């Protein structure tokens, strides 16, 4: 919602930010943002963090041992004797 008259205080604006951001509302033209440099900077930072999170987190490879552990656990669930365990 964009208010032209009676702009919010910083406290009021920031208290409503979670809902406004969460609803996907564009805040660039919000009356408070238009005249408050501090809240404008806050909003820019929050948007930067969200944008960075979407783009910079790497996809990482699990260690090779993990598949061996999974396979071993699967064998135990099935009651399969593993090769080493079967050796006399």
């Amino acid at each position: 919602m964009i208010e032209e008259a009676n702009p919010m205080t910083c406290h009021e604006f920031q208290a409503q930010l979670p809902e406004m951001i969460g609803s996907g509302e564009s805040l660039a033209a919000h009356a408070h943002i238009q005249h408050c440099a501090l809240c404008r900077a806050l909003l820019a930072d929050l948007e930067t963090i969200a944008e960075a999170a979407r783009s910079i987190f790497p996809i990482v490879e699990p260690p090779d041992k993990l598949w061996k552990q999974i396979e071993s656990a699967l064998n135990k669930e099935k009651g399969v004797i593993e090769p080493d365990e079967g050796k006399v």
Partner: protein
Amino acid sequence: MAPYPPITDSASQAAPLPPLEALSEADLLAQAQAGDHRAFAQLYSLHKKRIYSLCMRMVGNVAEAEDMTQETFLQLHRKITTFRGESAFATWLHRLAINIVLMQLRKKGLSLISMDEAMEADPGGNPGRGFGARDLSLVGSIDRMALERAVSDLPAGYRLVFVLHDIEGYEHHEIASMLDCSVGNSKSQLHKARLTLREALHSLPRQEARP
């Protein structure tokens, strides 16, 4: 291509299979659902990175991420025959992993979303606090390592919502359903997570500048 893991399931030895790399994911799924261990191993190969990365982000440390990834694929093995294709397999597996992480965290006694408490004592509790002192912008200056560190340092409830929404792309209503909280709480937690990250990221240059 790396050799396939040892075949230990008798069903997979019953008949020669076509090369696994020639199979579509749907065919691999069908084979795995029929008990073919090689096909299951191939599904692991295809999805391990995404699931492990998800677990790493959600729990914030390697040992637990390995445990959660292992549990996810064990559950997948138990439940694979229940997958009916209503959603994409990757999406289904992703949700399975999230549910396992959440269940494991609950088992450990972690109150995932003590949201009402958090709403009263957190960086957003006094909305104006500290914001006026900012003279640096994060725009264009976030570094990956710093953000990763800051995310891993988030309280668990904040981290879960941040990871699910900002990194994994879930909507608030989906997160609310997963975490058994209200949509408003999910929005609030996310906002507070971002505020906490902002505080952490802003504090880095000052800490480095003043040894």
